[in-house]
């Protein structure tokens, strides 16, 4: 039989993961500019399970799929929302993480809640779940402006500069960024009433063997409590439930 991706990875001895590195705490760089974060550890775990070494390939949000499609990476461990539209193109695993969405505002804008963003200039990272939802919301409100930036860093930079009044991001990112103290004058002001953003690993759509393996891996991470361990290490607090009530997957 023909060797599939899973065989290729094992044979090559290297697992190449697409990871977004300006998305703390999921992916970021330490003082030596080396990649660290939840997704980085997750990729390392996966590589260990496969018995190969891991290679982290930094991909900004908009470049995740091109990187996969061009064969530059084997798997995306990149906090990627599993939308149906995207699933027409790539193959998603079961969710490996779930985000709540939080609103972070510039203190000068006087925004206290999600609704308070109406009429303001808001932004998010281009190509993310929250960006797509927020842009739709702004259109519905019919006032204010939506701006997508290329990276999470640019979003928070714009927010702290006052170019944006508020942003919606995953609550983990929001907390992590506010905590660094790099961005003076911003605070988390509330939750965004979006559906829970389930994110999944992804690979080529027709690599059933690999997807099958990844599904089991995600499941094993939870069973062995490694998921909880990593969550505590990078995020902290209440562990999000990765299952959906009344559904199988």
């Amino acid at each position, binding site marked *: 039989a023909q060797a599939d991706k899973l065989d290729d990875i094992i044979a090559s001895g290297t697992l190449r993961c697409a990871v977004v590195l*300006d998305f703390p705490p999921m992916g*970021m*760089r330490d*003082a030596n500019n080396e990649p660290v974060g939840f997704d980085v550890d997750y990729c390392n775990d996966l590589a260990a399970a496969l018995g190969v070494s891991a290679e982290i*390939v930094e991909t900004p949000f908009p470049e995740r799929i*091109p990187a996969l499609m*061009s*064969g530059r990476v084997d798997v995306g461990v990149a906090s990627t929302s599993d939308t149906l539209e995207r699933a027409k193109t790539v193959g998603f695993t079961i969710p490996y993480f779930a985000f709540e969405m939080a609103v972070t505002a510039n203190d000068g804008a006087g925004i206290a809640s999600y609704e308070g963003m109406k009429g303001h200039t808001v932004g998010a990272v281009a190509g993310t779940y929250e960006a797509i939802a927020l842009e739709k919301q702004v259109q519905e409100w019919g006032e204010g402006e939506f701006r997508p930036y290329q990276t999470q*860093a640019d979003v928070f*930079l714009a927010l702290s500069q006052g170019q944006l009044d508020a942003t919606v991001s995953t609550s983990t990112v929001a907390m992590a960024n506010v905590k660094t103290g790099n961005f003076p004058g911003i605070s988390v002001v509330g939750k965004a009433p979006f559906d829970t953003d389930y994110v999944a690993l992804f690979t080529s759509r027709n690599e059933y063997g690999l997807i099958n393996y990844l599904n089991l891996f995600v499941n094993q991470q939870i069973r062995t409590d490694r998921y909880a361990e990593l969550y505590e290490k990078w995020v902290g607090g209440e562990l999000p439930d990765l299952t959906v009530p009344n559904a199988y997957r």
Partner: protein
Amino acid sequence: MFDTALTTADLMFLAKGAGMTILVTAISVAIGTALGIAFGVIRVQFGAALTAPLTFVLDIFRSVPLLIQLVLANAFLGMVLKLQLSGFFVACMVLSLYTSAYCAEIVRGGIDAVPATTRRAARSLGMSWGQDMRYIVMPLATRVALPSWIGLALGVMKDSALVYVVQVTELLKSTQILITRLQEPLFLLMIGGAFYFLISFPLARFGGYLEKRWSND
């Protein structure tokens, strides 16, 4: 004036990015120039009609944003042809072709500037086409083309800032990575900009000097 958290390690990181910028530029300009000379010579030698397809293809590289060229080449080579190529390879490939498209025009202009009678004189002495090209046309065309070529090389260096889309961490990307961590956009951007300026400016001036000198005789 600047109170910065920038460490020497970070400066090394920037220097690495700068090294990548220079490497990508050097490879692309080298290959692109070689190709550009070939394309330019072919265009002059075989005339507009015969080389129309080549002209059309080269024209595309000058009419579509480099960003899109990179994304498309990346997607096409990887997704469609299923080639396992590094981002570095794709970046160099696209930039080389991009360079060659501009270079072909410059070469064509240079060759056209060599008077036909000078070439006839060479052939009349029994020189072959290749000898005429090598000893007469190329040295003369170089004088006409070199200033524009320097401009092109510098342009490619600046445009190489876009290869971040194929996961190559060059100077501007390194700067952005540090901005992400350190949140000192203005200071870091100034450093990045200054670096480009320091490479580009002296060379650009040199090009201008050559132009002035050679336009006199």
